[in-house]
């Protein structure tokens, strides 16, 4: 359909108005607080960089940033390491279309259930007398139950589970568009399975891996529910700082923490997009 300029404007107007009022303004009002200070339980509406200065001279801030980035990197790495072979197996080892659609739906299904429910599932699984510890002891891997809750381990396991579908699907869909002839050509020219995989499949599916990394990393970085419920007091990450600051009515500090969180997300988006542009496209 040919759309006139007025028609385009008319179609976009409701969306732009909603985004301006309900998105740009709230974020602006929030971030403006970073230029105020919090003193004696009150926010002073003075214009200053003091809150930034306080934040970036406090060693605890760097501890939280490091913890957030490390947690997100580990979770992203694990999700990709599990997700890649699963996507590969689903794409190459399941012939029947119906079976494949069903398995894809099952792999996708946790996303339909609240993050609170999934985190609760891990709370049960990782308890000292839970399934994981009971199974490990039955097999004889451990004698004493592992402490998996209220520390980083439980958060890593649960977040990896939450991110896994986001790692699998970009890889799976890029793999589906892969030209099978390329791999066959490599095999015909005498390459073994490993050489064909290493030199053809893997490089050509890297765009999917990078896209998956992008989603996993940014989502893990801004995860709040899982670190809060499974991390106890030990896993202090940026979203928890934003939450705590806001609860303490210290909006200026919360705004700076929030901006740091946003800056880290944007940096990851920018860096991984730069990688994506340099990869061969399928």
């Amino acid at each position, binding site marked *: 359909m040919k759309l006139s300029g007025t028609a385009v404007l008319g179609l976009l107007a409701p*969306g732009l108005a909603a985004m301006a009022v309900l998105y740009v303004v709230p974020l602006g009002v929030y971030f403006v607080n970073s230029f105020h200070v919090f003193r004696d339980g009150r926010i002073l509406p003075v214009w200053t960089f003091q809150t930034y200065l306080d934040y970036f001279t406090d060693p605890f801030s760097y501890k939280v940033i490091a913890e957030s980035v490390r947690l997100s990197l580990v979770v992203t790495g694990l999700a990709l390491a599990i*997700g890649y072979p699963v996507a590969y197996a689903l794409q190459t080892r399941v012939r029947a279309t119906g079976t494949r659609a069903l398995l894809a739906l099952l792999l996708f299904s946790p996303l339909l259930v609240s993050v609170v429910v999934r985190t609760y599932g891990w709370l049960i699984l990782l308890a000292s007398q839970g399934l994981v510890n009971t199974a490990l002891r039955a097999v004889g891997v451990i004698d004493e139950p592992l402490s998996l809750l209220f520390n980083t381990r439980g958060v890593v396991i649960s977040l990896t589970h939450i991110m896994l579908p986001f790692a699998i699907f970009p890889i799976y869909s890029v793999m589906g*568009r892969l030209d099978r002839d390329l791999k066959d050509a490599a095999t015909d020219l005498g390459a073994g399975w490993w050489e064909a995989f290493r030199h053809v499949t893997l490089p050509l599916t890297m765009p999917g891996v990078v896209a998956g990394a992008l989603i996993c990393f940014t989502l893990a970085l801004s995860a709040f529910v899982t670190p809060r419920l499974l991390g106890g007091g030990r896993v202090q990450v940026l979203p928890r700082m934003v939450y705590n600051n806001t609860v303490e009515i210290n909006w200026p500090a919360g705004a700076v923490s929030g901006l740091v969180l946003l800056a880290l997300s944007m940096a990851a988006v920018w860096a991984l997009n730069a990688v994506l542009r340099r990869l061969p496209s399928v």
Partner: protein
Amino acid sequence: MTAPAVQVRSPVAVQEARAAAVRDAVLRTTLLLGVGFVLLPLAIVVVYSFSSVPYGVFPPPGLSLRWYGHLLGLPAFRAAFARSAVIALLATGLALGIGVLGALALVRGRFRGKELLRGFLLSPIVMPKIVLGVGWFIFFARLGLQGGILPLVLAHSIVVLPFVITIVAANLVGLDVALEEAAQDLGASTPTVLWRIVLPQIRAGVLTAGVLAFIVSFDQVESSIFLTRGENNTLPIEMFLYMEKWQDPTIAALSTLLIVFAAALVGVVLLAGRGADVRRLFPR
């Protein structure tokens, strides 16, 4: 008479065939383990909802329905479920109204700065939810709009808008423009073409977008936790707050009901779209 066929194969070929068989087995096992890992926390929640004891021990020493009974005695969860459903429905409706129009402009319109605009409209996806949550908290507090469901509906509509635009736009791309142009040439106005020609063709896509938007809205915690104050708690927030205090299987019973609810929603989409759109979500 089958013996010669076997003898023809060289030892190298036999070795390769064996390696391929091992690889197949390993990959199939990986796939099954992956599916198992993904489903495990949901399965355990269902098992625990029937546990006879309040503490986490595997296997549960006995079975009972007491947690479902306990759940029925907690009206806060029922009210929160209804509230979440109403919020999700309203937010989805709002986002569909805005998003279908926006997607149409993005797919069919030709104007400068289109990519920039697309990036802006999709940007709530990458914005950390807790940041949005605090932003809305301050914004609605300044407006004096606190409590009730209106702030939640408005906030959720922005959270789900990018999903609606992405899915509807993907569905619009595949349409035959000739149909719309024929209608226009025959004198139909733009709104008429939209309503009578375009919309009927993307019905399944709009439904998929709507169901996804509903689910995303229903699942909001970080973006909404500062907009709720007890009287207007949504279900995930009610659950989150309950879990901070107690960890008995009442949450498991409720979670089981939610899993059934999600499965029913998927069933609706599969039936309504006859699977076509779900298959589009999982391209081969």
